[in-house]
């Protein structure tokens, strides 16, 4: 589960936009997947198609709405908050308020010590790792990835060097949206599909991005692991809600003393 939550966070920092609607995109991925599975009966088709659909939604968001206010962080927070409210309610109206279930595509279980462990979780984890490696490769080894990192580092300089910054912004956003949706689809068989499912994941995403450092992808990965360890280990000793409080408090400390993130320079 930890790996999924972080897949969507990676782009968060890159965009330098606090996207309050990110959780909604995650939810949208799961919901679209539910419809696709209903239609085709195949989880894997949904896993490929749903992120594409949501990617288009993200493209519309970025082109249509956020374009003009991207340099004003506070305004984008409010704007994406509005988008979050609207989309969430739209899904509520069409999809309904009751959580629905997506059948686990791989039913098999295997023996881990004396526990029955579902194979699906392992597959999900492997896919997540695969996607992360792919993303890392894309950002570090391809021209477009280089552009993206350049735009994050120094926008003006990037423009001066002839990088199509607007395009890069758009594709970064689309990629972020698609990743959010992808995580949503992956999570769908484990949790229920519900129009509110984006809310909690949004908070997790915030935590991980802040702790890891904005725009620092490797930091996000490490932060996700640390936070889920705190959550997981904490939950053994205290109620889960208190464990959440602990990780939130941890985040405040990070914000105060290392606002650039634990692993920032």
């Amino acid at each position, binding site marked *: 589960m930890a790996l999924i939550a972080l897949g969507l966070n990676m782009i968060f920092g890159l965009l330098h936009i*606090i996207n309050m609607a990110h959780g909604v995109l995650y939810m949208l991925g799961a919901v679209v997947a539910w419809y696709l599975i209903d239609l085709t009966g195949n989880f894997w088709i949904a896993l490929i198609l749903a992120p594409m659909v949501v990617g288009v939604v993200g493209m519309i968001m970025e082109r249509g*709405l956020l374009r*003009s*206010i991207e340099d004003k*962080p*506070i*305004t984008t*927070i*409010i*704007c994406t*908050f*509005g*988008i*979050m*409210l*609207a*989309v*969430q*309610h*739209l899904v*509520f*109206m069409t999809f309904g308020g009751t959580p629905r279930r997506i059948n686990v595509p791989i039913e098999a279980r295997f023996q881990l010590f004396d526990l029955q462990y579902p194979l699906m979780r392992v597959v999900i984890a492997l896919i997540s790792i695969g996607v992360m490696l792919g993303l890392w490769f894309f950002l570090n080894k391809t021209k477009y990835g280089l552009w993206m990192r350049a735009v994050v580092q120094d926008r003006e300089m990037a423009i001066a060097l002839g990088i199509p910054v607007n395009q890069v912004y758009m594709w970064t956003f689309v990629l972020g949206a698609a990743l959010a949706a992808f995580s949503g689809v992956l999570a769908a068989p484990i949790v229920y599909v519900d129009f509110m499912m984006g809310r909690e994941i949004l*908070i997790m995403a*915030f*935590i991980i991005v*802040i702790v890891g450092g904005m725009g620092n992808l490797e930091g996000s990965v490490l932060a996700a692991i640390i936070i889920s360890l705190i959550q997981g280990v904490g939950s053994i000793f205290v*109620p889960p*809600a*208190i464990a*959440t*409080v602990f990780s*939130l*408090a941890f*985040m*405040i400390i990070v*914000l*105060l003393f290392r*606002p650039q993130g634990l692993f920032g320079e």
Partner: protein
Amino acid sequence: MSSPHQKPTGFLIGFSVILVVLVLIPFFVDLFYMTFLTEVLVWVLFAVSFDLIFGYTGLLSFGQALFFGIGAYSMAIPISKLGIGPIPSFFLAILVPMAFAGFVGYFSVRLSGIHFVIITLIFALIGSTLGETWTSLTGGADGLTIPFTPLSVGPLTIDLTNINTNYYLVLIVVTVCYLLLRRLVHSPLGKVFIAIRENEDRARLIGYNVKRYKLLAFVIAGALSGVAGGLYGITLKYASANFLHWGVSGHAVVYTIVGGMGTLLGPVIGTGIIMILEHYLVNFLQGTDLVIGIVLVFMVLVAPKGLVGLLKRNSG
């Protein structure tokens, strides 16, 4: 953005007219609308308090719900669990949120911009998580009911279960708070807040202790949010952990943006319009978030200074 040089006579006339109308309304409308109107007034106070921190000082706080909820609980817990009367409880509903705002603010004002937004959001999250978990104290999402018994003050008997009495109490408190805030934002202190919003570094270089002023704005806003929460508790006769949810802060964001940030009139108008809109929409679309969200996005993109900004542009 704001207009500190509004003609005082114009304000006095407008203010008096509105106040007279609000005082007379209970004689003309039925009980249902009185409850609604009382709630609108409470949210007006909440939105105005949010505007002090966001519109004037430039700090987007998603933590106001925390103080709102604490205000409501400062009414609820003393009355229902400790047997303390409503009047001391009311003062608790000012002081306790104020103390919490001091604590949260002490840490938060060290940060600016996006980081400030996030840290207030986290504090609010801690508050609501604790509120939902600690059910023996807060009643969780089901909440605590507040039993009000009629209260005699000298020759007067105040019965808060009577909606008109309730309304007048809220009206008086909100009016007083509004006037205090108006005085505040037009004072030299208010100018410092605006200076911080416009350029924090410059305000610091001129020699202002920016952190201290931000903290001051945060504490005042927190106390007023607490008062709004206390009044909300009085009006609904209960307090629930849902009041602490950061989504509640979202209401204030919407009201303020739609009305016009950085003006005191803006949040008032925004709250009125949005709540009336919600009231009529709620039957059509199984809720209102869709329309509210679209309105919010629209306002941010087309009229970032809100309705008040639009009016000003057209008139001047």
